[in-house]
């Protein structure tokens, strides 16, 4: 996982630069998402790991699958990554690309896990508070996890704000057990 991140970074940075220059961030983003989905497919990944297939063959196959959804430059990326045997890190390239994009646009994707469904007012308040705290635009995705008992857990990148009942009870248990 760590190694994949390291390997994916140069590709992601190069792709971001090209996309940025051509003002085609959205089209590249879609292309990378499509590619990641295909690469992550079980049957597909089996094929990609098949030693009997040549590198070029694997690249061509991927391009065929996505057909005309890829423009020429995007096809070149697939060929290059096929050549270097890096097709399997496509999801990491996508993630890094999105991170770079969010950073440039001063945006953060935050995930909120709550014990109960949040009202619109609550999400708005959360977005505003997080905006102040993190100093950038925040896009929220919300999920419900009843095992939290109460409260919320907010994840934005590596940062976690854990205000759930479950974690409080856990740490109380730990402190009493000492």
């Amino acid at each position: 996982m760590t190694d994949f991140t390291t390997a994916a970074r140069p590709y992601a940075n190069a792709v971001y630069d090209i996309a940025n220059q051509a003002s085609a961030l959205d089209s590249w983003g879609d292309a990378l998402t499509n590619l990641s989905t295909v690469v992550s497919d079980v049957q597909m990944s089996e094929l990609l790991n098949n030693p009997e297939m040549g590198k070029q063959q694997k690249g061509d196959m991927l391009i065929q699958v996505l057909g005309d959804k890829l423009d020429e430059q995007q096809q070149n990326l697939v060929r290059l990554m096929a050549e270097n045997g890096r097709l399997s890190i496509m999801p990491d390239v996508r993630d890094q690309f999105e991170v770079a994009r969010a950073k440039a646009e001063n945006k953060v994707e935050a995930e909120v896990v709550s014990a109960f469904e949040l009202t619109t007012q609550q999400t708005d308040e959360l977005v505003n508070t997080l905006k102040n705290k993190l100093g950038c635009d925040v896009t929220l995705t919300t999920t419900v996890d009843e095992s939290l008992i109460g409260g919320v857990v907010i994840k934005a990148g590596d940062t976690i704000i854990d205000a759930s009942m479950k974690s409080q009870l856990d740490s109380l248990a730990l402190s009493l057990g000492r």
Partner: protein
Amino acid sequence: MQLNPSEISELIKSRIENFEQKVEARTEGTIVSLMDGIIRIHGLADAMQGEMIELPGDTFAMALNLERDSVGAVVLGSYGHLTEGDTAKCTGRILEVPIGNEMLGRVVDALGMPIDGKGPIDAKLTAPIEKIAPGVIERKSVDQPVQTGLKAIDAMVPVGRGQRELIIGDRQTGKTAVAIDAIINQANTGVKCIYVAIGQKASTVANIVRKLEEHGAMEHTTIVAAGASESAAMQFIAPYSGCTMGEYFRDRGQDALIIYDDLTKQAWAYRQVSLLLRRPPGREAYPGDVFYLHSRLLERASRVNAEYVEEFTKGEVKGKTGSLTALPIIETQDGDVSAFVPTNVISITDGQIFLETDLFNSGIRPAINAGLSVSRVGGAAQTTIIKKLGGGVRLALAQYRELAAFAQFASDLDDATRAQLELGERVTELMKQAQYSPLSIAEMGFSLFAANEGFLNDVDVKKVVEYEAAMLAYMKSNKADLIAQINETGDYNDEIAAAMKSALEDFKANGVY
């Protein structure tokens, strides 16, 4: 059903009431690999070098390698319950241990947790284990002695408060014995002691604790034990933890003595951790920073001036200097002092006490090699009487060593040479001292005086040890005033010399041995 003392309803109630759960933003990561106590964590972008990382199950790790996409950390303690994919949280704190007077009399592990079954330690303060040593301005030169109670050391290789004196020798040469004697002798001096046991057998540590208790030395001593069965990470950090506990006393205008037993094993533990973290190996497979490993530790043993203490305690303690004296121990292999770690530590310390197997086996205990043992700063810290009288002993031994080769031609030698040889033999005998029997300054003074003034000349070489014991017993019972006077001031002048001489003559006339 067994309940432990912390399970009283009232107590639990108050703990629940006072329980404070702060919600704070923390950085989280995921464990991606776990092997031999080394974990690699993905994420944790803002981890600090040396930061404590919280793992599931009340376990902590220490971040050592900060890389672009991962953090390499060592787990402190057992790691059997950890799995790949577990979350790891930053704590924002550098590794800390409890400090204070509460630590005295206790046996703790490398994290300062009690392991002696005497209940929790109610220490109010904690301090980070890695600190920068006091700078040039804050220091004061060494001019007070640490009495080890061993004649051979106090007379020939004196140790001052704030000095770093290495104890080096092969296995089974009595290195630990010297250190333990030094601790026992601090009982009434006010010097607090910390004994750091690194990579030792648990039975050895238990033995040391028992011996210290027997001699009433445990009250002023903390033992930090990272035994052979503890993880390499714990053995690696134990000296730093102990040093932090010792600095508590130094910074508050008191004197402390710390013994690292031994730094060879700490270097091994660090080598293991470093190799597992894939740091490049250098000479003898040690990592590149093995010198810094010991130099930063030993540099913290120092004497600080009164201004530093006053500033540190915010004016609470005035006009008092503080000191932390270190006696690091290094075990050599087959007397090889030119190996990597021994040469490093020899160059860092202010002198060394060199113990030899041959001397040990020929019955000279402590087995100190008087020629190779030196103290670079201790001379300034000796009490007057020991300084005056010890010089003669050192000289006699040096001349004896030079002539010892001719000893077998004794009959063909001139009188002067033969006299030197005989004195040398007697002084060598006189320097023997049993374990756990430290001597006071006055007792040492009498022994040295007897050698210098020729009182030993008509004592049979084999009887020197008995002569000394009888003489000291005689002095203690008949010349208690003189002994008390010398012990109090440590002065030496013509008057005292005359009194000592007449006392020894009395013993010669009336004593039996």
